[in-house]
């Protein structure tokens, strides 16, 4: 789960990081009132769950109340990469002398949390990784001991020769790690971590992704979820406990298993079509779940055909077929539905499908090809 800068900053504050105060404002009036309270200069920053806010004009330095009003008016309602800005963070502007990047993520190769830091602050780390990979200092963190003092200090002294600044950087890295573990993050970044001209280190931008698998430990984080930003179909899928991603094509796909679902999408494209979605309905034969999945897909007006691609494995295909039949009966489906079922009792399943409007298919290639034929009709 992605969260907003202002939410991430709250986590960082709780972990003891020096983060300038700030307030998420939902209107121009709220933004100007907040700016008034802080005094000039302030930053007005779009709060959207996507990068590139600066380039899109969503981050403004304001040295007058007129500028605050003008910036808030411009940014609220702005579209950034398909995200509508409905709140801005108003925060005191800080004099910046130096900028650093400090971030952590779960590293697949080492199976550890990896600290990455760079003196190229304010730049996306992926960009630094491409342009100047040597500028990124890395430190693998042993979960048994956490980020040790000397590890943090050694990384920091590679970033700056100023030992006072290095100590602040090192302490901030350790606090970031505390926050990372505390909130079950999969990614946590301070970008940039800055020093003011009088040598005070501060975290002036913040990014945190939460591990969805760990949400059961953080029921209160559900409040952090920005429902306004969520695609309604993806929100519905989440509530129905389905893995779903909206795409731009016309072939609705219901598949069991994420890998098979991706391979099915790829096969749709291979045969010249375009998938309307990624959707993993899991291994169950529960008709309620199939109903939810179908409802989500049918909300998409582009969908001209629906395909089921189920490799049941041990699951009994006749059970799954009954679930699909019941689900399709419960809904008023105007587009053709093609069903491929493989696994235990697949013959019995095909018999069950015979009495219905559902179009049977034997293989993965066949279900995709049939779907595409039906879509183009």
């Amino acid at each position: 789960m992605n969260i907003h800068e202002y939410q991430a900053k709250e986590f960082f504050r709780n972990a003891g990081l020096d983060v300038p105060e700030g307030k998420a404002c939902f209107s121009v009036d709220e933004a100007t009132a907040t700016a008034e309270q802080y005094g000039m200069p302030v930053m007005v920053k779009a709060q959207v769950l996507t990068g590139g806010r600066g380039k899109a004009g969503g981050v403004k330095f304001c040295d007058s109340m007129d500028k605050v009003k003008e910036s808030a008016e411009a940014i609220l309602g702005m579209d950034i990469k398909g995200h509508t800005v409905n709140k801005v963070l108003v925060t005191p502007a800080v004099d910046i002398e130096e900028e650093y990047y400090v971030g952590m993520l779960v590293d697949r190769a080492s199976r550890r949390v990896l600290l990455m830091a760079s003196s190229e602050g304010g730049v996306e780390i992926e960009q630094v990784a491409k342009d100047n990979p040597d500028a990124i200092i890395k430190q693998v963190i042993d979960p048994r001991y956490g980020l040790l003092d000397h590890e943090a200090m050694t990384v920091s002294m590679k970033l700056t020769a100023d030992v006072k600044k290095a100590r602040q950087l090192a302490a901030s890295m350790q606090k970031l790690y505390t926050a990372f573990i505390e909130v079950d993050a999969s990614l946590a970044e301070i970008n940039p971590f800055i020093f003011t001209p009088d040598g005070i280190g501060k975290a002036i931008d913040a990014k945190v992704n939460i591990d969805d698998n760990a949400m059961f430990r953080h029921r209160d984080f559900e409040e952090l979820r920005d429902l306004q930003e969520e695609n309604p179909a993806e929100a519905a899928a989440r509530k129905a406990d389905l893995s779903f991603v909206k795409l731009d094509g016309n072939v609705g796909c219901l598949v069991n298993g994420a890998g098979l679902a991706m391979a099915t999408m790829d096969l749709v494209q291979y045969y010249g079509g375009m998938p309307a979605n990624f959707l993993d309905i899991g291994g169950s034969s529960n008709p309620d779940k199939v109903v939810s999945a179908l409802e989500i897909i049918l909300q998409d007006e582009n969908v001209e055909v629906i395909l089921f691609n189920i490799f049941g494995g041990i699951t009994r295909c006749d059970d799954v077929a009954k679930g699909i039949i019941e689900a399709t009966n419960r809904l008023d489906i105007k587009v053709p539905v093609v069903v491929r079922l493989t696994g235990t009792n697949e013959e019995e399943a095909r018999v069950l499908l015979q009495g219905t409007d559902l179009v049977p298919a034997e293989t993965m290639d066949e279900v995709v090809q049939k779907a595409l034929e039906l879509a183009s009709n």
Partner: protein
Amino acid sequence: MAIFCTGETKVLVQGITGRDGGFHTKSMIDYGTKVVAGVTPGRGGQMFNETVPVFDNVADAVAETGAEASVIFVPPFAAAGAIFEAADAGIKLIVCITEGVPTNDMVKVMPFLEDRGVTLVGPNCPGFIVPGQAKLGILPGNIVAEGKVGLVSRSGTLTYEVVDALTKAGLGQTTCLGIGGDPVIGTSFMDAIKAFNADPETKALVLIGEIGGDAEERAAEYIKENMDIPVVAFIAGRTAPPGKRMGHAGAIVTGGTGTAAEKKAALEAAGIPVADRPVDVVPLLKELWKDA
């Protein structure tokens, strides 16, 4: 021969009295797996399926039955704890089927396993099957056949699809292994490939990858340097949009890396053909592997 275990390996099941655990334990027993014990706290002394003794904890189960491997079917919040318990009791092969385990729980468990030389498969995986010998996990036994092809996959049902195609084409398997799609897993793509490379019976290898991470790229490099047997691959997720998690927590293109195209290019550069469709794995392998 195969990788990880034989038909003689003594297996215990953690969470044997749960719905999924019970169902799949029966299926494992039916396949011929030597399931010697189950573990559910508070159920010690009971029998599962009238044949398998249930214990309160893994240490007791190991002491009583000599179990060597464990298959874990417990809820996500208890999965890391179950892995710790198995490893602490001396189990050297653990297959964790559980889906939805927090990544940081797995990060925490890893050094414990490394210190003890434990092989973990998963979590969030279908486990593996040694055709004709044993299965530790949830792969359907009816689609595999004994043979000489090793298969490793980051996926579940997509694995079945490819295995099914191989079997129907007469290409039996030494071991079919699904390592799972989470970011932090025990046996990595590379670990599996090395295990197959060390297995004299495995004469060809099928890799089923997907978007996210760089496991396939690193595997390509390793295979180029170290392996002589035929290897073919399939990569799922060519049409996946960047920045979206495709079901598996690990299946995500971030910062422009981890794409299917990159992986395909890396594999092909290492001389490993990449199939366009799952079914194309069979002809590609047959072409490369004239003895089959």
